[in-house]
Every structure is written in C-alpha cells, then in structure tokens.
C-alpha cells in the first residue's frame, strides 16, 4: 500500500490562494497547516538535492564535485528535518505519487549544462536565503531549522553568485551559455515568491522585492541581461505547490523511488 503517510500528501492539501500577481501580497497566509508548509519546503529541498547529486562523477572540476555534493547534502538534511515534521521521511519521499509532491517546478528542472545548474541554484538559493532569514527572525515552527539552514544557504547562494560571475563575465561562450540558462529558467521563478500554504509570518512582498534586487544585482555584475520575459506570473507559476509538475519530474521520481518500492516493507 503506497498511500499517504500522516498528514497532507494524500488529501487535497496545499490550496494555494489565488495568484496575486508576481510580487505577491503583503502578509503571509495561514490557509493551510504547518504540515502543508513543511511538505512544500521539504519537497523543494529533497528534489533539488536529488538533482544536484546527479552531478556526482560528472562535474567540470574536482572542486565542484565536492561543492555540489555539499549543496546536495545540506539540502537533503533540510528535507529530512522538514519531512519528519510531516510523517515518515522515507514513506513521504519514496511512496508518494507525482501529483502529491509540493515542490516548486524550478527545483525539478533537469541539470542541463553547468550554467543551467548554476542559474537554478542562484534563483533558488536567493529565495531560500530570504525565506530562512524571515523565518529565523520569527518564533514559528520553522524558526529552529531556519536558523540552522540560513548559513548553509548563504554558502549555496555565494557559490551560485561566484559561478554566475565567472560564467557571465568569463569567455564569450560561457556568457552565451549563462545567459541562455538564466533566460530558460526565468519562467519558473514566479512561483518562488508565491505564498506557501500554512507558512505564516512571511512578508512575501518583501521577499519578492529582495529576490528581484539580489538576483538583478548578481546578473548585472555578471554582465548578463535580466530577463523580462516570459512573465513570471504565467499560469505555470504556482503549479508545483498544487502538485502540477513538469514532464521530467516523473522520470526523476521513477528513478528515485524504484528500489524502495520494489521491496515493500523492507528495511534498509
């Protein structure tokens, strides 16, 4: 039986409020449970960790093997803490169907070339750092994790910023590739600053503004153009939080879940 563990994934959870434009609204929403929010943030970390770990043995330099694995490990640690707030971490990771995952679509995007991986990381880590900053300052259920994960995420962002600068302001080829990656993933960034159901005490407008400022400054310093299109409020933004994912995600799950599911009830 591969049904839901305790909490959210089986029922129709994660009701995301109507999109309020790319910038979001002011106050955080509480229309959802803490478990809903833990699942959303946990799935972000779980899925991005998985993508980063796919680099093992394929990175462009030995130093990057170490760095990308560091990121993957930090995120996996965050995911385990968050999923454990909801239920059994392994049941949640390995036994849910695709539609029950609540991660944003950005994190499931394939690694592509190194520039795509870096662009994805820049977008995500900038968002995550701002989110942890706000949550660490509050006294909600995520404050302890946010305090611990904040410095990790600051390193992730720093790594992404450093590489965005090197690739953007490196060679003509690297600049082209970095710009292409920045453009290609832009469409998935609107979802990052949408309110997460069950996550109270977040000023989403401030988060969206901070994100645009930090990402914009990095891209400009890297001599790259900040994308203007497609609009970040297109229909796809907000999909992941409702369990609407992109095609590559099903394959990611097939690979991630197959061994666990092939031995029902086994312990590892």
């Amino acid at each position, binding site marked *: 039986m591969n049904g839901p563990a305790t909490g959210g994934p089986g029922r129709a959870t994660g009701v995301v409020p109507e999109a309020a434009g790319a910038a979001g609204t002011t106050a955080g929403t509480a229309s959802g449970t803490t478990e809903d929010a833990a699942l959303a943030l946990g799935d972000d970390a*779980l899925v991005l960790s*998985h993508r980063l*770990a*796919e680099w*093992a*043995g*394929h*990175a*462009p*330099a*030995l*130093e*990057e*093997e*170490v760095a990308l*694995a*560091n990121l*993957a*490990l930090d995120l*996996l*640690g965050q*995911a*385990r803490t968050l*999923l454990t707030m909801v239920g059994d*971490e*392994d049941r949640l*990771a*390995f036994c849910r169907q695709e539609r029950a995952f609540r991660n944003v679509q950005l994190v499931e995007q394939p690694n592509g*070339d*190194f520039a795509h991986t870096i662009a994805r990381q820049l977008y995500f880590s900038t968002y995550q750092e701002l989110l942890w900053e706000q949550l660490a300052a509050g006294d909600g259920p995520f404050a302890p994790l946010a305090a611990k994960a904040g410095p990790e995420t600051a390193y992730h962002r720093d790594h992404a910023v450093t590489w965005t*600068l*090197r*690739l953007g*302001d*490196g*060679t003509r*080829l*690297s600049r082209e*590739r970095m710009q292409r990656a920045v453009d290609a993933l832009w469409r998935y960034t609107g979802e990052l600053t949408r309110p997460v159901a069950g996550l109270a005490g977040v000023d989403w407008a401030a988060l969206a503004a901070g994100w645009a400022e930090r990402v914009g400054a990095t891209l400009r*310093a890297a001599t790259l153009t900040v994308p203007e299109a497609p609009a970040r409020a297109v229909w796809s933004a907000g999909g992941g939080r409702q369990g609407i994912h992109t095609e590559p995600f099903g394959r990611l799950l097939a*690979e*991630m879940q*197959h*061994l*666990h599911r092939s*031995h029902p*009830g*086994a*312990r*590892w």
Partner: protein
Amino acid sequence: MHEGVYREFEETIAAGERIEPRDAMPPEYRATLIRQIAQHAHSEIIGMQPEANWITRAPSLRRKAILIAKVQDEAGHGLYLYGAAETLGARRDELLDRLHAGRQKYSSIFNYPTLTWADVGAIGWLVDGAAIVNQVPLCRCSYGPYARAMTRICKEESFHQRQGYELLLALSHGTEEQHEMAQDAVNRWWWPSLMMFGPPDGESPRTERSMAWKIKRHTNDELRQRFVDIVVPQAASLGLTLPDPLLRWNEERGHHDFGPIDWAEFHAVLRGEGPCNAQRLGQRRRAHEEGAWVREAAAAYAARHAARPAGRAA
C-alpha cells in the same frame, strides 16, 4: 654519483625520517612516487563512478545521505592526492591528461559494475576494507606529504568500510531477497578485492625498490593475507559466505588458507578488457571535456579580475 648527492636522502631514509618536498631526492624516487600517488588519485576519482551509480536510487534518505558523503569524500581524497603529487613537481591537469589518454592506471577493481544496491555495501566492506589494509602502512611512507594525506584518508576510509559492513548487515538480516542480494554482491566482489593487492610477490617488479625506499612497507602477499584474516570473521558475523571452498583456518601458519586467484582475469582487466574499463574512462573523459568551457571561463574571469586595479569602481 648518487652516493654523494643523495647521501642526505639515504640517511633520512635509513633513520626512518620523512623526505619533504624541498629535499634532494633521486629522480627515480620522485618518479616512482608521482606514478604511485597519481594512480592512487585516479583510483579515487574513477572510484566515484560505481557508487555514484546508486546515489539516485538509494532506498532510504539516510542511506542516500551517507552515499553522497562517501562519494564526496572520494573527490576530496583525489584533491589531497593530486596536491601531494604537485609537491613533487607534477601538475594535476597533466596527470589527468595521462589518465584520460590511458597512459596512467587506476585500480582495476573499479572496472567491475555495480549491479545492485548491495554492491554499494560490498564495495564499502571489501574494497574499502582492502584499501585500508593497503593504505595504513602508507601513513608511514617516507615521503611526508603522501604520508600525511594518507593519514587523513585512512580515517575517512574506515568510516566507509563501517558503512559498507552496516549496509550489508541490514540486507543480510532483511528479507530473503535482500539477503540474496547481499550474498550475490559478496560473491562477485570477493575475488576482485583479493586482486587489489596486486600480483604475487614473485611477479611484482617494483616491490623491492619501493620497500628499500620505505614507500612500501609490506609485500602484496603479506597484505593480502592480512586482509583475508580480517575479513573471514566479519563475513561470519554478517551471516554471509565468502565464495571460496578452499578457505579455512590453518593452525600451523596461524593464518587462513585460501584458493588460487585467477591472475589471468586480473591481467585481462589490467589490459583494458574488464567489463567497465571503456565505460569508466569514457565517462571521465566526457566529464573533463564537457567541463572545459567552465574551467576556461573561470580562468578567464580570474585573469581579468586579477589584472584589474583593486578598488575598481563598479
């Protein structure tokens, strides 16, 4: 001629002290060390592949975290070791070129495939176990930077070996299918693990000189015997069988006897005829070639920004 120039070197070796990068050393000593350290570094980075093969399919999040950390350690070991080789005047990119061109070897063990999850356990227990037996004496190697790198590496390797043992223990005591998976992996990895110690003493041309220089402290056969003696009781406590009908305790020798090793297979794999030689080297080359533009960008960026005056207005 050597006697005069390298007297200090000989005295340092004789006194059991360390040779350091700036010390005078015979060119053959330097060349032997570069070759051995490079081969060791290459083994670490090629060795990432068979285990990375299972990261995305790890059956629990705890196991996944352990495996990512282990593969990361191997990349880190590669870094220390290339660093140690650089203290001898070698360059990492040149050593990698030699690996990619097939002119330098890596441990043949990594030319076998990881077919099931249990192989991750077997690699940890047997392959890392054999590596530890090989490497612990290298912590006392006469060349300082290598010895220090090995001290660090051995600490991490013993964690790797324990996780492999523990992984197999869970499988061995798990479902029937899991137990079979564990036994099958041990059956496939046992003999290649014994081959990791290299050819028998009579056929190991470099052993004598390496021992005189205190790079190597024990012969291949001595280390192989030590490994067998360590592993046999561990197999029993795992509830798994080692696939050698001739394996038994010899009271007289105070060691385990074991059956003949198929050296024809060893030499075939060494020649490039193993199941994964082409695959492993192919992936390594591909990663290197596909990463070239990234490394070039980093170099161009560093050069441009180093050239710029400090405190640039931007």
